[in-house]
């Protein structure tokens, strides 16, 4: 480890400690609603990014893609972030009585919520979360640990196993991301529902995973560690980012437009809160930073393969994904957008924690899946 790396690690540990102090302060001083809204924000964010990375790995096995074999180790390492997400998710269950109206006793007086009492109630809600976390850990075990082991064994049997497991994992992934969306995010406003909501969060999760993957690939390339990864591989990452910003906007706008048109009070209230007061600005900022800017930044052919531009766009998309989750969760707090020391402390704690974890993970195993028989074909990939 170089001297510069050690300095960065020390710095990150410092910000982690600072963030932890702030979070403890928020627990003692800030209102419980605000504390738990922050907690859920970071739980959902880290969960979607890690799950998005695991989705990239599974997608490669599912469609038998060759181009992504040389960079597959990067999303595999990022997906290990699911391990620290498990305790974060279990702690997040503490938010249920505070933030989720469906878990409160007065919900039984509400006709709509009383009908869903079993689904929204704490026991079944917690059970779903535990099962979801367990299911994705199984996916991590099969896809990522198997791949790391192949570095030594060089056994192509792993490829067959992963290809067989990938379709099953896709079903698990669809279920888990939908549960995260419906339970943790739209469960905050249980009288409002949208069928497409799971797909909306999936688009954000895939983008988040892709953005972190692209940033890590570019970072390791700068250190000269991913030899053989060329512009052609970057182009595909850029193409995916470009395509899915459009997909995200398509889903987001389709959801909005149908509700805007129908104008039913129980549906349109969701967007009413997000289009009045301070949230109006946040909504338009989200549309600009999550769609307009990345779209025009990546629209040309050269842009998608250009490392320095890709790095900036990936950073932008990651920030926009954070803003997206913030926009989904925070309007339940009254009084416009909140951004003060509790939010910043949470950001410090979880961002430094996640960065430390990913930096550690980047030293695990080989930089490329050297045991994969398709590695050579992947390195020879040309557009």
């Amino acid at each position, binding site marked *: 480890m170089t001297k510069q790396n050690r300095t960065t690690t020390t710095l990150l540990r410092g910000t982690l400690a600072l963030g932890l102090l702030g979070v403890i302060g928020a627990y003692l001083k800030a209102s419980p609603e605000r504390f738990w809204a922050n907690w859920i924000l970071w739980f959902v964010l880290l969960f979607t990014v890690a799950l998005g990375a695991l989705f990239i790995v599974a997608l490669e096995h599912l469609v038998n893609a060759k181009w992504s074999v040389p960079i597959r180790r990067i999303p595999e390492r990022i997906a290990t972030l699911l391990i620290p997400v498990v305790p974060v998710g279990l702690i997040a269950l503490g938010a249920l009585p505070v933030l989720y109206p469906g878990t409160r006793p007065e919900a039984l007086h509400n006709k709509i919520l009383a009908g869903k009492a079993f689904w929204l109630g704490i026991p079944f809600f917690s059970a779903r979360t535990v099962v979801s976390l367990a299911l994705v850990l199984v996916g991590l075990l099969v896809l990522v640990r198997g791949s790391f082991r192949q570095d030594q064994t060089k056994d192509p049997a792993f490829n067959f196993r992963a290809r067989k497991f990938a379709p099953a994992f896709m079903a698990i992934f669809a279920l888990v991301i939908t549960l995260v969306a419906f339970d943790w995010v739209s469960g905050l406003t249980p009288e409002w529902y949208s069928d497409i909501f799971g797909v909306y969060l999936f688009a954000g999760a895939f983008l988040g995973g892709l953005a972190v993957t692209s940033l890590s690939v570019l970072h390791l390339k700068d250190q000269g560690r991913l030899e053989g990864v060329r512009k052609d591989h970057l182009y595909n990452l850029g193409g995916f980012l470009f395509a899915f910003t459009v997909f995200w906007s398509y889903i987001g*706008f389709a959801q*909005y*437009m149908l509700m805007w*048109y129908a*104008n039913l009070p129980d549906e349109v209230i969701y967007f009413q809160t997000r289009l009045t007061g301070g949230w109006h600005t946040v909504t338009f900022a989200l549309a600009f930073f999550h769609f307009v800017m990345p779209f025009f930044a990546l629209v*040309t*052919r050269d842009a998608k393969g250009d490392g320095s531009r890709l790095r900036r766009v990936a950073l932008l998309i990651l920030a926009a994904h954070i803003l997206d989750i913030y926009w989904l969760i925070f309007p339940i707090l009254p009084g416009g957008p909140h951004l003060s020391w509790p939010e910043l402390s949470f950001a410090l704690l979880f961002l430094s924690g996640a960065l430390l974890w990913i930096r550690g993970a980047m030293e695990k195993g080989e930089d490329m899946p050297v045991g994969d028989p398709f590695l050579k074909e992947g390195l020879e990939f*040309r557009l």
Partner: protein
Amino acid sequence: MSSGKSFAVLGLFDSADALVTAIPKVREKQLGGLEAYTPYPIHGIDEALGLRRSPLGGMVLVMGVLGAITALGFQYWISAIDYPIVTGGKAPWSWEAFVPIMFEVTVLFATFTAGLGMLLLLNKLPFFGHPVLSSESIKAITRDRFALAIEAEGEGFDAAAAQAALAAASATGIEVLPEPDRGPFLTSDYILRVAGGIFTACVVAGLLMYAAVKLFPVLPPMSHMEDQPRLNAQKADSFFKDGFGMRMPVPGTVARGYLPIGVSSQEEAASLVNPLPRTPEVLAMGRKVFHNRCELCHGALADGVPTLTAAYGGKPANLQAQQFRDYPDGKIFWAITMGKNAMPSHAADLTVTQRWAVVHYVRALQRAQNAKDEDLNQAGAR
């Protein structure tokens, strides 16, 4: 036939390596555009040939943006300017509703530009057969040889120099390809056949449609307008117990703007006073109502000479007669409200205000048709 000009000079190489090493040697002489023809794709040959970036991407972007602007502008014009109409409780200018169509038109413009731009502008179609396809070398190219072509760009193409350059790069089987035959494309015969084909297709489709409707009469093409879940006027409906679609007002209530006039005969109505002031606005309203409702029978001058009596036996009242000029306002109002002789009641069609306004207007017509001499003095004094 061929115009005698050369399209390109083409030479063959035995291997992909030989082709790639030869390209820089030929390229530095700058005799024309380079193009390679190979049995399989060779990575990196685009850069070696120095192919210019296709302008298609930029064209597609421009046309896509133009499509979005066109769709937005057109929808804005029709729904907010030319015919503003409130649909579904939305304001005429509701950009959210325009987005799907903007999306579609963007895609339409972009794909048409990509397809037609590639074929017509960049590939310069139509022409009958690419020269390379009719060359001597084509069999070798599709089997195991690698061809390099120097294509003519503009008038000053030196075929001899190109042949020499290829020979210097140790190419074999060098040949000069003539310009492709761009025969006349839109001949009258061709247009006639296309138009005839379209006409035949339309006739056949129409006959098939007719047969389908005749054969399957239970499947009307579209009946949504007929089957509406609402109560129709004058129709029976099973929704209410008494089976009537139309309902009586709730007993003891009065609809807004339909207060009872408070008198029960035309004689009693004589006591009613016109509540409206005699202002230009009121007279304009009265004239409009008179044009729409009264003029057809009573005539434009209210003199009982109608425009529509050829097939009608009734005799409309001449409102210019002394009898009606002496009528109090209230009795005219009563006649409009309750109807008189063959004239039906207009109470359902005209509001109370409109009825009083038309009374004012009738008074103005009567005065205008019976002008006095001293009116001239008054007009002169102005």
